[in-house]
């Protein structure tokens, strides 16, 4: 009966219900967008590290992110690492911002990723046109088909210039988006070095693959002891560091989280307001319930049920709208991301928000004097 009464009270005043739902909707959609952007950004920032087949990353000391690793590692570190027990392979990677001169004039910045796919540590994924063999052919690179406009190209066969040399688009990836808005361009390790004009033994990162059964933490400690001026990070640590650099040093992450908090606050205030006024309207009924001998807990449950019902309805509508926005955003510079975890968190958040909203209404009913039932 608690649910029945809550449901009837809710649907009794349709306008107020609409306002409540709009409040919840507003919150959910806003929070979903903000956190969706946050997740989307995170995935973009960590994609390269995440996709790599490696147990540990060796970076120059103080490397801030995947894009800003410098070009400081050399064969010395590589050999030291290879000599460490438990290490199976050490794969060099070259990553650097570079100037891209468009075929029709003008320039932009790209992130050049030099890797040898044969080494099995990192390769351009989601190739939709061309193969790794094509990228190995002279002057070849791969570009992403969602960045044609920025790169001033139209597809396979177009030529451009990266830093020191001419390049030819021989393969296309699909939707490897970049948080820095500088498109990722893949090529071979040696071509990357020559385009950037660096020594042939230099690398940005060494990706370490371990022998089966090796203890990651022990190997890491040993690598740290052997390598001076370099850091040894797990994938998760390096992802964290990249996230911190791009999301928090730049303030972008804080803006997103701040926006989400604002959404929660505004939604809570609206729901609290409507729930309070609904409770006020039904105060006589709550007094009657009290006179009939209901415990105050019973009455709180009615109010909480009202809050919970609004939460569930508002959540369902809010998620539907958010998914719509998600779909629309899929080809924008910042595609939103929704995960089951985020959807679950949003539901928890909605319930929490409604419960907080119920507080003022509950305080109101605790002051009910059942004696008022006789003075109507």
């Amino acid at each position, binding site marked *: 009966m608690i649910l029945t009464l809550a449901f009837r009270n809710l649907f009794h005043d349709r306008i107020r219900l609409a306002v409540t739902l709009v409040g919840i909707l507003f919150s959910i959609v806003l929070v979903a967008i903000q956190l969706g952007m946050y997740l989307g950004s995170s995935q973009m920032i960590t994609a390269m590290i995440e996709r790599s087949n490696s147990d540990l990353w060796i970076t120059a000391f103080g490397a801030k992110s995947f894009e800003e690793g410098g070009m400081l590692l050399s064969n010395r570190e590589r050999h030291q690492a290879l000599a460490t027990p438990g290490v199976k392979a050490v794969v060099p990677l070259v990553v650097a911002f570079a100037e891209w001169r468009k075929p029709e004039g003008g320039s932009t910045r790209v992130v050049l990723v030099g890797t040898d796919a044969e080494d099995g540590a990192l390769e351009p994924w989601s190739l939709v046109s061309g193969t790794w063999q094509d990228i190995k052919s002279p002057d070849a690179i791969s570009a992403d088909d969602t960045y044609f406009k920025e790169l001033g190209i139209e597809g396979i066969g177009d030529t451009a210039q990266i830093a020191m040399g001419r390049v030819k688009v021989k393969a296309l990836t699909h939707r490897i988006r970049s948080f820095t808005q500088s498109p990722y361009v893949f090529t071979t390790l040696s071509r990357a070095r020559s385009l950037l004009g660096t020594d042939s033994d230099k690398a940005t990162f060494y990706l370490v693959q371990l022998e089966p059964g090796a203890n990651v933490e022990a190997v890491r400690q040993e690598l740290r002891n052997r390598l001076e001026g370099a850091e040894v990070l797990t994938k998760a640590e390096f992802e964290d560091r990249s996230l911190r650099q791009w999301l928090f040093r730049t303030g972008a992450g804080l803006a997103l989280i701040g926006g989400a908090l604002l959404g929660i606050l505004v939604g809570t205030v609206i729901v609290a307001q409507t729930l309070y006024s609904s409770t006020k309207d039904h105060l006589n009924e709550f007094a009657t319930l009290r*006179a009939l001998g209901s415990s105050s807990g019973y009455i709180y449950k009615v109010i909480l049920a009202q809050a919970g019902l609004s939460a569930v309805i508002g959540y369902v509508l809010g998620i539907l709208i958010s998914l719509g926005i998600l779909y629309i955003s899929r080809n924008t510079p910042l595609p939103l991301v929704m995960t089951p975890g985020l959807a679950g968190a949003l539901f928890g958040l909605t319930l929490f928000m409604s419960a907080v909203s119920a507080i003022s209404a509950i305080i109101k009913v605790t002051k009910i004097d059942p004696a008022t039932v006789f003075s109507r």
Partner: protein
Amino acid sequence: MTIPVLEAENVVKELGKGAGKVQALKGVNLSLVKGELTLLMGPSGSGKTTLLSILGCILTPTSGIVRVAGEEVAGKGPEELAELRRKHIGFIFQSYNLFPTLSALENVRIALDVIGRKGYQASSRAEEVLREVGLGNRLRNYPSNLSGGEQQRVAVARAIAASPSVVLADEPTAALDSENGHAVMALLARIAKDQNRSVLAVTHDPRTLGYADRVVRIEDGLIVGEERRPAGLDAPEITDLTKRRKANG
């Protein structure tokens, strides 16, 4: 002599604060036994509603003793008082106080829900009492689609659904026309007799006198008289037990 289900001893009740303080009850003694319909009559402001609220454990006395089914009310907190109400007392109000968003059946069911009776068993009990008050064909109607008399009968059903030993009614016929007023009073008398409950109804209405087993008069916060119909007499005629009064006002 039957054991009283509800007793008030020397009950004093002060209402309001400071200069507005009023002694609404000035030492009331009253006890109610099962199987009787008692009417509480008196002029406006004499303390009828206040006494009803105290007997119903909605208010507590400033001084004096109230016992419900032998249990003393003194010193109980709001939650314990609520528990006494749901265990022992049914209420009927002048303005029915039905839930407008619930059907007749649901209005009765919620009173059972409050005392923890749920599900099919509660539903069939609600239906049963609604049939008893003659509303078997109005189960799904909402209060707005019921006449005043029907609404008050739903309220009566709600009051008796949980089988309380005492039913307290404040001016149950005041909002009803003569015919419906009589119907509700007849119902209350029947509830007292057939179901062996104690029913106390506050009323102004002289038409209700004929249904009473006992009439208690209150004036200015004090019981000033009590009349009782002799056992075995069915006619609406009241014999004076304390002092002679004209029953037909």
